[in-house]
């Protein structure tokens, strides 16, 4: 596979752009692979890439039931940050941030990673205290964090509501300068291309319908394109984790819930950072095309339908206007929904399972996009070695039994409250 460079750009420009190859091979399934990864989203593709790149395991297939970029990797709001408080999360997401910083170079694909900075507004003295605690934890882990007072926030983002009539007056904010956004499709395409370049078969339109067992061990999968044998099977599907796990006889602490995202009509550059509203669950950023991208709460009841309801639409717009009254006349262009694997503690599961031959990467709740590279890195190590990497020891399935949960949202075992 030829490398992208300024010279390849010039060469193709001079020859009428007729020589570009497709970004990844259209592979047909072989009879068997060393590793089969179910799910061609960001996490599955990253896993395949790091299996080949870090561990030399190249006889790998990624099975995607739809097309690359059609699932949650194309349905998120592209925010990347590592401002976590709890042990296990803090280190993992910072490792992910470091991989983001080198991703375009590592993949030879511009993922348009933009470290524009993220701030979360605080709306009381107490909230600013808890943010200060978080900032201290981050800094003690070598992560950049700043606490801003009201005047500094005003200087940075003057378009927020600083008036006397603000619904929840802004007291300050926590700011992470290295946070930002990336082009989510490019992440999928970049990993797919780089993995394919290492010999990984990326098979689109191939839905896994069942598992093949030999005794107690899983030795392959049944798919809509026939039976595929596998030395090890990695499950990396967002939304349908429990549906597939159930076919393997595995019960999980997961509920599937719908999360919507929204984008306005494009406007001139207005929002330079990612801004999150501390008084509600709401955040926004501006895409390179000019649209303001919003995210908010879950719809909050079990759902496998990738479409939302208007109640959440209204709540999100209320929060948007409470934070930024000057966008009240903007029209919403689109909104869409993705299905989230919600776990009881809002932390993911990267784990060995009681089912021999089956490895699990799921339960990303609504935070999976920023974790893409670290999740792939660690899951690849798990699939290559059969051991749990140190970085994800906190994300094991056993934590719910032992009580070692990482409950970042502090919402207890009720998935719909996360």
């Amino acid at each position, binding site marked *: 596979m030829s490398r992208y460079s300024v010279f390849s750009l010039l060469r193709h420009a001079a020859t009428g752009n007729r020589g570009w190859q497709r970004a990844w091979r259209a592979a047909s399934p072989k009879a068997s692979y060393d590793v089969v990864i179910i799910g061609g989203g960001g996490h599955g593709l990253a896993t395949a890439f790091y299996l080949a790149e870090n561990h030399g395991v190249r006889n790998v297939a990624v099975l995607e039931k739809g097309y690359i970029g059609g699932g949650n990797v194309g349905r998120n709001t592209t925010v990347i940050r590592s401002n976590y408080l709890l042990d296990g999360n803090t280190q993992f997401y910072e490792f992910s941030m470091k991989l983001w910083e080198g991703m375009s170079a590592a993949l030879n694909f511009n993922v348009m990673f933009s470290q524009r900075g993220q701030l979360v507004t605080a709306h009381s003295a107490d909230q600013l205290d808890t943010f200060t605690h978080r900032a201290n934890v981050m800094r003690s882990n070598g992560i950049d964090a700043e606490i801003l007072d009201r005047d500094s926030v005003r200087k940075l983002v003057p378009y927020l509501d600083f008036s006397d009539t603000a619904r929840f007056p802004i007291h300050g904010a926590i700011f992470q300068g290295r946070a930002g956004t990336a082009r989510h499709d490019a992440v999928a395409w970049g990993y797919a291309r780089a993995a394919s370049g290492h010999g990984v078969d990326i098979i689109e339109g191939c839905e896994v319908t069942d598992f093949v067992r030999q005794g107690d061990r899983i030795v392959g999968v049944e798919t809509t394109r026939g039976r595929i044998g596998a030395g090890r099977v990695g499950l990396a599907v967002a939304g349908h984790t429990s549906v597939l796990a159930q076919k393997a006889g595995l019960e999980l602490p*997961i*509920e599937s819930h719908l999360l919507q995202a929204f984008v306005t009509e494009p406007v001139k550059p207005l929002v330079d950072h990612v801004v999150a509203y501390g008084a509600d669950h709401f955040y926004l950023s501006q895409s390179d095309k000019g649209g303001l991208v919003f995210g908010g709460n879950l719809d909050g009841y079990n759902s*496998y339908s990738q479409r939302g309801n208007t109640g959440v639409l209204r709540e999100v717009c209320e929060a948007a206007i409470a934070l930024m009254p000057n966008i009240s006349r903007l029209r919403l262009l689109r909104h869409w929904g993705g299905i989230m694997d919600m776990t009881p503690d809002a932390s993911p599961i990267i784990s060995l399972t009681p089912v021999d031959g089956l490895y699990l990467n799921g339960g990303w709740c609504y935070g999976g996009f920023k974790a893409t590279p670290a999740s792939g890195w660690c899951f690849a190590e798990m699939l290559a070695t059969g051991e749990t990497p140190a970085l994800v020891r906190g994300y094991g399935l056993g934590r719910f039994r032992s009580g070692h949960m990482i409950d970042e949202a502090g919402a207890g*075992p009720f*998935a*719909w409250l996360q």
Partner: protein
Amino acid sequence: MLRIDCPCCGVRDHSEFRYGGDATAERPAHDNPDLDAWYHYVYVRANPKGLHREFWQHVLGCRQWLVVERDTVTHSIHSVSFSRRRRA
């Protein structure tokens, strides 16, 4: 927007209700010392793609807890009933 036919109040938007989760999880007896039973009750969910029995409370209406049978793919509601059990 889901429309839930409350047996007390009639058909209302689901924004009047609070979701209460899986109604099929069976709470172990109060003095049950079996850790596994409690683990399953608190954490493990069948999470079906299809018909789901779930609790909703009509917080902005009669405040009754209801059991709603709903399809998690199509959102069509098959039945609504009171969650309280009649005493024999």
